[in-house]
């Protein structure tokens, strides 16, 4: 193979690596923010908040590298798709980082007072979402389409959990109005987690495009004809 193309291949691999590094970094941010919330650890929460700067810097850095490769190398086919994928995925990963920060801030806000109920469901949601993210990153490593399908299934589960949590909290705040501040914050956290799950699905869809060259909206929830389980409205 031509030496210039060998060098280019090296650059593409490097790009891939850096994306994975950013992904792992943000994965750790998410995990820490959830732990900070459940253990009410303010220091851990602050760590997460300051880590966001690093994540943002990685985002910018990788984007610049992509633009450079586009301008100088005229990539085609697989190579072009890789670079396009990387550029979109870093945006999703960066948002996940931002949501982790939001969760960390909530942890700080709620620290010092006991929770009105143990955070079983939210923690469980956090775990599942954490796994989704990890699996999406693994799909990126291995160009593995099976994992993509798995992530999409999990998203359904997360959506269901979100809706049931919403119902549960609606009931609780009606019975015990003094729990409203905490309940609202925790509801927001659940919402953040649900958003993280969506971004994870985006990442999975991008991996599918990178591998097959066809762009699909694969997750049912991303399609316009999707209906909620208890949706009574007609369109």
């Amino acid at each position, binding site marked *: *193979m*031509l030496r*210039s*193309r060998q060098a*280019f291949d090296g650059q593409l691999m490097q790009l891939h690596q850096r994306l994975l590094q950013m992904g792992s970094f943000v994965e750790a941010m998410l995990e820490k923010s959830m732990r900070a919330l459940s253990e009410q650890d303010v220091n851990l929460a602050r760590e997460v908040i300051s880590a966001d700067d690093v994540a943002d810097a990685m985002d910018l850095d990788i984007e610049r590298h992509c633009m450079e490769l586009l301008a100088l190398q*005229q*990539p*085609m*086919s*697989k*190579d*072009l*798709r890789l670079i396009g994928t990387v550029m979109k995925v870093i945006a999703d990963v960066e948002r996940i980082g931002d949501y982790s920060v939001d969760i960390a801030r909530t942890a700080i806000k709620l620290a010092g007072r006991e929770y009105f109920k143990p955070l079983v469901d939210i923690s469980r949601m956090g775990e599942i979402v954490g796994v989704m993210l990890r699996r999406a990153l693994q799909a990126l490593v291995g160009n593995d*389409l099976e994992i993509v399908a798995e992530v999409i299934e999990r998203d359904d589960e997360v959506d269901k959990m979100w809706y049931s949590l919403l119902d549960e909290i609606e009931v609780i705040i009606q019975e015990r109005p003094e729990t409203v501040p905490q309940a609202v914050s925790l509801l927001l956290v659940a919402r953040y987690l649900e958003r993280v799950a969506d971004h994870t699905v985006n990442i999975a869809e991008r991996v*599918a495009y990178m591998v*097959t*060259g*066809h762009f*699909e909206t*694969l997750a049912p929830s991303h399609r316009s004809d999707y209906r909620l389980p208890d949706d009574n409205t007609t369109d």
Partner: protein
Amino acid sequence: MSEDATRPWAQDERDEAPKGEVIARPPGEIRMEARELDMYYGDFQALQKVDIAIPGQQITALIGPSGCGKSSFLRSLNRMNDTIEGTRIEGLVQLDGEDIYAKGVDVVELRKRVGMVFQTPNPFPMSIYDNIAYGPRLHGVTDRERLDETVERSLRQAALWDEVKDKLRQSAVGISGGQQQRLCIARVLAVEPEVLLMDEPCSSLDPTATFRIEELMLELMDEYTIVIVTHNMYQASRVSQYTGFFMLGELLEYGPTTRIFENPLDSRTDDYVRGRFG
């Protein structure tokens, strides 16, 4: 890439022209076509079983590494291979459904309908006017007014009129390379062809002149069917609607240009467009 029915993303709902066929057949009018075309230079087989359909009023690009047969194929479309000793073809080449290699075919008429522009500009050592008028005069036009009209029309079509209208009597050899190539294009247009064959028309030109010729091609596309051989695949991606990839005398893949450059079906095409061949 095999089609796997269990994967949801294998069900493509977009209505693209024949997807999933390595050698596609463009929809719409087909002007020229080759079927099972073999070509030999003596004992050497330059083309193997080439099947390709050239769509009308579009630009079709032929790419591939040097020596892959794309120029030989182009020359078989207007029987210019006949001028080289020892060449032989088997198979079918059709223009509007008629076999151009059939007995009794008038090659002169064929070359009027299927014109060619060459790699290095080759204006005749005569005036610009006489260069353009050469074709029509060959075919019997002597009326001065008609010739004047034809010369002007052709030079305008080739986007050269404004630059040379005051020096029509000057030698064609004195103008720049890019202008000479446009002159050669005008010269071909003067005989009113239907198909334009271009064999690496920009390879001896600088980038600015190249872009002007590409502009010109896009303008001419509305009236003419254009087939261009180029060793610069970026040029192919810029101007063509359909692209064919040749290698070692075989047409390995042929389809919409977007497919060839974004997501080719054949791995050899993929390696080539990504620059992975040395």
